[in-house]
């Protein structure tokens, strides 16, 4: 028998079962907590930190997507402090690589862009890093532009957990971190990739795209969101 916990989010009384996360309970109760790396149907990993919330009695901010609920928690999901942090996170994501929305395949269909708009990020104060990062367009159908990757690792997770191909991985550390195919081989030479396109569909930005798509004509207009990902993961338990 599962235990039911009752607690509050932004003063609203809510309840959930012991195995749920704060984000799941918030979603069930219509409380919107912003996310970028979270994707229904694949396991959360708390990478983007956009969903951080305040938990009464703790000095640390907790990512809502990976924090289990507990009895009597008092959670603040929206405050000026959190808004400031979230805005800073989005700004840092933009500055870390080279995002040029006007000529991006995902323009107007981009979750990073939407998040920036929703959080009132009208300009950048941080200096851009402008790293030199490449594009791998060796796959016949798809390409990855690392300039636009925010390392949410949805591609890595969907490829491993849903498709079962485990083509994608993560290489290097810190600012040098990159997603890679087949341990660093060009995507076009991958022997594990099934060309299913799930990674392209779940990418929140224009980092992964169908080749030949023109600017703002990205193929991700049919989101949200591949409901079958969730169905598949539930069936598999």
């Amino acid at each position, binding site marked *: 028998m599962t235990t039911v916990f009752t607690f509050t989010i932004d003063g609203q009384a809510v309840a959930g079962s012991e195995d749920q996360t704060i984000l799941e309970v918030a979603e069930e109760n219509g409380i919107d907590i912003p996310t970028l790396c979270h994707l229904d149907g694949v396991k959360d990993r708390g990478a983007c930190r956009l969903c951080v919330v305040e938990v009464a009695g703790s000095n640390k901010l907790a990512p809502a997507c990976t924090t289990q609920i507990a009895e009597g928690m008092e959670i603040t999901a929206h405050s000026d402090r959190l808004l400031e942090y979230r805005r800073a996170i989005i700004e840092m994501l933009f500055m870390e690589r080279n995002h040029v929305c*006007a*000529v991006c*395949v995902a323009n107007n269909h981009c979750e990073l862009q939407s998040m920036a708009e929703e959080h009132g990020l009208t300009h950048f104060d941080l200096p851009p890093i402008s790293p030199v990062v*490449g*594009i791998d*367009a*060796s796959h*016949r159908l798809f*390409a990855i*532009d690392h300039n636009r990757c925010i390392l949410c690792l949805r591609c890595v997770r969907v490829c491993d957990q849903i498709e079962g191909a485990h083509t994608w991985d993560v290489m290097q550390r810190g600012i040098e971190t990159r997603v890679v195919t087949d341990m660093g081989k060009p995507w*076009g030479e991958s022997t594990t990739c099934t060309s299913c396109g799930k990674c392209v569909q779940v990418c929140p930005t224009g980092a992964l795209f169908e*080749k*030949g*798509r*023109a*600017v*703002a*004509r990205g193929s991700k207009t049919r989101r949200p969101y591949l409901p079958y990902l969730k169905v598949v993961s539930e069936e598999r338990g």
Partner: protein
Amino acid sequence: MKRELVIDPITRIEGHSKITIQLDDRGEVTDAHFHVTQFRGFERITQGRPVHEMPSIMARICGICPVSHLIASSKAVDDIMAVEPSPTGADLRRIVNLGQIVQSNALSFFHLSSPDLLFGFDADPAVRNIVGLARENPQFAKDGVALRKWGQEIIEQIAGKRIHPSWIVPGGMAQPLAEETRDRILAGIPEAIAITERALAWYKGEMIRWEEEAASFGNFRSAFMALVDRQGNVDHYDGWLRVVDSDGKVLADRIDPHQFNDYIGEAVEPWSYLKSTYWKPMGYPDGLYRVGPLARVNVADQMGTPRADEELGKFRWRLGRVANSSFHYHYARLIDTLYSIEKIEQLLRGPDILSTHVRSRADINRREGIGVSEAPRGTLMHHYKVDDDGIVQWANLVIATGHNNMAMNQSVLQVARHYIKGENIEESMLNRVEAVIRCYDPCLSCSTHALGQMALDIQLLGPDGALLDELKR
């Protein structure tokens, strides 16, 4: 909390330019240079980008004529994919390109140049602008605004939006034409023609007033280059390059635009970021040629539409088979506009214009591609090289303003020699130097002058290089 917004300086300009004029011991003009002092670097920043992004990136070169770059760039990528757009896709591109020509020509003639023509080159600069125009001749100003709006609406309705539209894509167009859109554009044709014919009638009636300017505003022998179709008609989208001399003699014809590198060279001068292109068979700097509306009417056998051909006949009756003064760019621009409106109507009435097959698709099939079209200011060339994955390795753009660079320099020298006497510069001289540049409608004047002035710096240098006088705006 009260806030104060300060805009300083106002940079209402497409580009920055400078003119230097050299004088000898007797105060006579010996040389003059037109310097373009800004650097953009699009050929470098596009290296490493997927080639399908090129049209949209290249469109950002200009907010006035993004469609010209979209067309030439998309054609270059078509070439790399080794595909031709379907006939309907090509015709829709033609219509958008002509809409672009109409709106840009309207901007150049009505908004930028007509204040000089209407008020005279010596008029008070406080009056000699679009605001003065609206006060003095409201119908004329309204005509200019309405014609530009009509051209912009064509771009918006067929290509998605007015500035930097995204529906002109490699392989054709992203969207077919809706019947109601076609009908809406067609409904505006009679007024667009009426406006252009009114402007032409006015211009022809007033031409005699500008005889002195016409005689010294870039009035010299040179070659002219433009695209023509199989029948020798003007063609703004496709066709072959033709070059004629000052007498109308054809120097070269039926040049496949893909071979343009065999005929056109690019020289770099230390005093300008704008490259000088030249006709290779004649070498540099003798191979000076002009492009743009004047070149189009000089090069073509005929325009190819009835009203424009009638006007071309009158143009040639007045000025000869080839008009050599750059002042006549204005006159030619109006004929070019009339042609464009008529051609848009012809294309929209085509039987297959509503076909839904507007795009061809293909992978990367060539490592190199060239796209050439006529932009408002003249022939525009995009040339790309890619790797097997379609990543851009190299790009070269030959822009209309570059073709005209040597001619603009020679024109500035001619105007300076004619109007500068002694060591002082007067405002009317400054305005004439601006006005001769404006004849060519170079991109750096695109968004200037509408409210009075172009950012221009004129320096008068003595024989030892010492600065004698300077006028800045």
